[in-house]
C-alpha cells in the first residue's frame, strides 16, 4: 500500500487553476461556434442550411447561434464558404429563465452536494460529468460533492432529453430534494431535446418535466463547463448567455 501513497505523491498536483484563473490546456474544451458577421447572405444561408439542428439562424449582418441546440457537428466550420467563428473557452453555463430570487451563495457557497440523474444521456455527458471528479478538475477542492441519495442533495444535475421511462424517476428524484434546491441541466439533449426529442420516446429536454435553473449547453459540455454551471448555480461565477448574436459592427471612422 505504501507504494500507492508514493505513486500518488510522485504524480504531483495536476489540478486545473480554474476557477481562480482560466485554463487553456490543449484539448480541455472543444470550443463552440458563436454568432458571426458574414460578408454575403449566401454564406449565411449555407450555414443555416448546413446546421442539422436549426441552432444557426440568420441575423442582422450574419448568423446567430442558439447554443442550447448546437450539437458540435462541425458542419458550420468545415467545407463552407465562410465558416462560423469558433470560440475556445468553457464558461458556458447560463440561466434557463429568470434567475431565482433567493440568493443561495450563503447557504451552499462552500459546500454543495450534487445528485446526478441520467435521463437518457448518450454517455458522453455522463462521462464528462464523471471527469469533474478526476484529479485534473477535482470538484472536491471547490467544496462540491456527489451524494447517492437525493435527500442529501442541494443540486440536481440532469443529462439527456428525458426518455419516457425516466420521466417519473426524474420527477420523483426532484421532489425528494429538500428545498431550497437548484436544477442544472447539462448537454444539448437536456437543454432542447437535441437530436432525439421531442419524439414518441423522449421529451424536449429537462425543462418540460422539472423546473430548470441553469443550462450548460454543449455536446457534451467539457468538465470545466459543468463546473462553471455548478458554480453559477450558487452564484460563484457570472452567467454566460444561451443565444449568441453576431457582434455589432464597429463604428466606422467618419
Amino acid at each position, binding site marked *: *500500500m505504501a*507504494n*500507492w501513497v508514493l*505513486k*500518488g505523491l510522485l*504524480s504531483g498536483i495536476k489540478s486545473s487553476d480554474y476557477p481562480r484563473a482560466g485554463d487553456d*490546456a*490543449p*484539448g*480541455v*474544451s*472543444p*470550443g463552440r461556434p458563436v454568432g458571426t458577421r458574414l460578408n454575403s447572405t449566401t454564406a449565411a444561408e449555407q450555414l443555416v442550411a448546413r446546421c*442539422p439542428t436549426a441552432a444557426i439562424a440568420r441575423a442582422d449582418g450574419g448568423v446567430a447561434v442558439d447554443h442550447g441546440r448546437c*450539437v*458540435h*457537428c*462541425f*458542419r458550420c466550420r*468545415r467545407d463552407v464558404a465562410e465558416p462560423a467563428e469558433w470560440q475556445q473557452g468553457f464558461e458556458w453555463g447560463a440561466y434557463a429563465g429568470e434567475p431565482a430570487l433567493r440568493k443561495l451563495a450563503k447557504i451552499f457557497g462552500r459546500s454543495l452536494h450534487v*445528485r*446526478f*440523474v*441520467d*435521463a*437518457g*444521456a*448518450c*454517455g*458522453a*455527458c*455522463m*462521462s*464528462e*460529468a464523471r*471527469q469533474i*471528479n*478526476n*484529479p*485534473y478538475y477535482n470538484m472536491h477542492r471547490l467544496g462540491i460533492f456527489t451524494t*447517492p441519495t*437525493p435527500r442529501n442533495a442541494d443540486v440536481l444535475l440532469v443529462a439527456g432529453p428525458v*426518455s*419516457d*421511462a*425516466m420521466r417519473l*424517476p426524474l420527477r420523483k*428524484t426532484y421532489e425528494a430534494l429538500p428545498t431550497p434546491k437548484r436544477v442544472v441541466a447539462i448537454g444539448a439533449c437536456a437543454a432542447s431535446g*437535441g*437530436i*432525439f*426529442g*421531442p*419524439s*414518441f*420516446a*423522449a421529451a424536449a429536454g429537462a425543462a418540460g418535466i422539472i423546473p430548470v435553473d441553469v443550462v450548460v449547453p454543449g*455536446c*457534451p459540455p*467539457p468538465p470545466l463547463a459543468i463546473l462553471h454551471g455548478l458554480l453559477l448555480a450558487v452564484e460563484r461565477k457570472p452567467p454566460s448567455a444561451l443565444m449568441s448574436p453576431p457582434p455589432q459592427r464597429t463604428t466606422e471612422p467618419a
Partner: protein
Amino acid sequence: MAVLERIADNTAGSASFAELCRSLWADKAVATEDKAARLCRLECGVNTLPDVCQWLTRDLDFIFATLIVEQTARPGWSLTYVFYKDAASPWVHVAVQLDAGVSALPSLVGLAHGPSFDWHERETEDLFGLKFEGHPRLGEFVLHEDWPEGVNPMRRDFDARARFVPRARDPRWEPPTVVVDPGAFTMPVGPVFSDFAESAHFLLETVGEDVIRTIPRFFYKYRGVEKIAEGQPADRALLLAERFSGIAAFAHGLAFCQAVEAICGVAPPPRARALRTALAELERLRSHAAAITGICNSTALAVATSQAALIEESLLRLSCEATGHRYLFGAVVPGGIACDPAEPNCRHLVAAVEEIAEGLRNLLRMLRYSSSFLDRLEGVGVVADGYARSYGLVGPIARACGVARDIRKLFPYAAYSAVDFSVPVEQEGDGYARLRVLFREAEQSVAIIHDVLSSLPQGPVRLDQIRPRAGAALAAVEAPLGAAFHWLRLDQDGKVARYRVTPPSFTNWHGFHIAAENFAFQDFPIILASFGLSNAECDR
C-alpha cells in the same frame, strides 16, 4: 451425422458453402451467394427456420449476430437472421417472409444456442408486434408497463412524432421473483443509483448477505433511435449513429458510414482508411482506460483510480487535439474522414499514446501486487465459456472467457487487414481476466496507432461527392465494447428506410445475469464495473 461432419469439415471456403447448403437443404431452402460481399443467403419457410438455425449454431458453431425485421412493400414481413463464424466463413443470412395476415413464427430460444435469440425476439415482439410461439417471457421489455397495449412503434403506420398517453400503472404489480427460500427478499437497485451510474434497474434476490439472482431491467433510456432515423437523409441519421452512444461515437459512426459506402458502391481513399483505423483505436484505448478507472473505483482503490483517470483525461484531450472533439464526434463522414491531421500532429499523437502505454504498464504492474485489489476481482463475476458461446457474447467479455472473436480479424474493415496485431484471450472468465484483457487490448491499440500513423499514405482523406443510391447493407465493426452490427436501407432519395443497430452492450447485458449469481452483496459494483457496459448503447 456423417453428412453434418462432412459439411463441418468443409466450411473453410465461402465458395463451397452455398453448395453445401444446397446439398443439405435442397428442397427446403434456397441458397444464393455473393462472393464479393462474403455473404451466403438462405431463404426458407417459417417451419424450416428452427432446423436451419440449429444446424448453423450447434453443428457448425456459427454465432447469431442480429435479427433484422422489415415491413415489406407488399404487405407482410421480412425477417433476416444474421450469423457469422470465423475469418474463413461467410456471413450467413437466413431469411424468412411472412404474409400480412401471419404475425407469429416459432421462437428459437429452445435451440442449443437459444439464449442468443432471446432478447432479439423480445424486442421484436415489443416494437413490431410479431409473436414468437414458445418464448417463455414476452412483453414489457423495451416498452415499460405504462406503454399502451397493442401499439408497436416500429410499425410503418406509427408516427415517430406522436405522443402517447401513459397507461395507468396496475397497483397490484409486483416485481418478478424466482428465489423461494425462507427469508428471501428482493433488493431493488436503480434506476437512479450510485454516484454517476447510468439508468438501469436491478432486482437483487437475496437471503441476507448473499445475492442469489439478479434480474436486470433495461430500456429506461430507450430513445427510439431506429424509429426516428427513418425518413431522415443519411447525413442527418449519421448524427444519431454517433450520438446514441457517445462513448463509442466513432465506432458506431464508422459502421454507419461503411453501410452507406457499401450501398453506394464506393470505397474511401487509403489515407482515410488508415486514419479511421487510428481513430478507432484511439477510441478503444480511451474506452478501455475508462473501464479500468471504473474497476479501480469499484474496489475503492483511490490512488489507482486517480492514476487511471489521469490517463483517461489525457486521452480525451488527445482526441480533442486530433479531431477537435473530445469524443471524436463529427470525425467520420461517408466517403472518408472530415479532418486531416498534419504530419507533426500525427507524430505528437504517436508519442503521446506511447507515453500513455507506459503509464498503463506501470499501473498494471502495481495492481498485480495489490492483493486487496486482486482479492476483490479474482473468481468474481465468472462467465463460463459455454455461456459465452450460447449467449453469443462479444468483445472483451467474451475474450476473457476463451472466445477469440474479433470483427477486425473476421471481416477486416478500414485498414485492419494491413496491420499486424493480436487478439488477446484469457480463459478464466472472471473480473480479473476481463481486466487483463482490457490492459492487453490497450497495448495492441497503441501498437496499431503507431504502425498506422508512421506509414500514413498520402492523398485525399475523403471522396468528393457520393451519389445516393437505393439499397441495403450490413456493416460490422469491433466497437470498444465488442461487435456492433448496423443494417441500413436507403430509399432512392438517399433517405433512411430502415436502420437496425445491434450494439455490443445489447448482446452482452443479456449475459450479465450469468455473472451476477450467488455473490456477496458488496461485489455487485465490482461485477458491474468489470462488465463496463453502456446502457445508452444497449437501449438506443
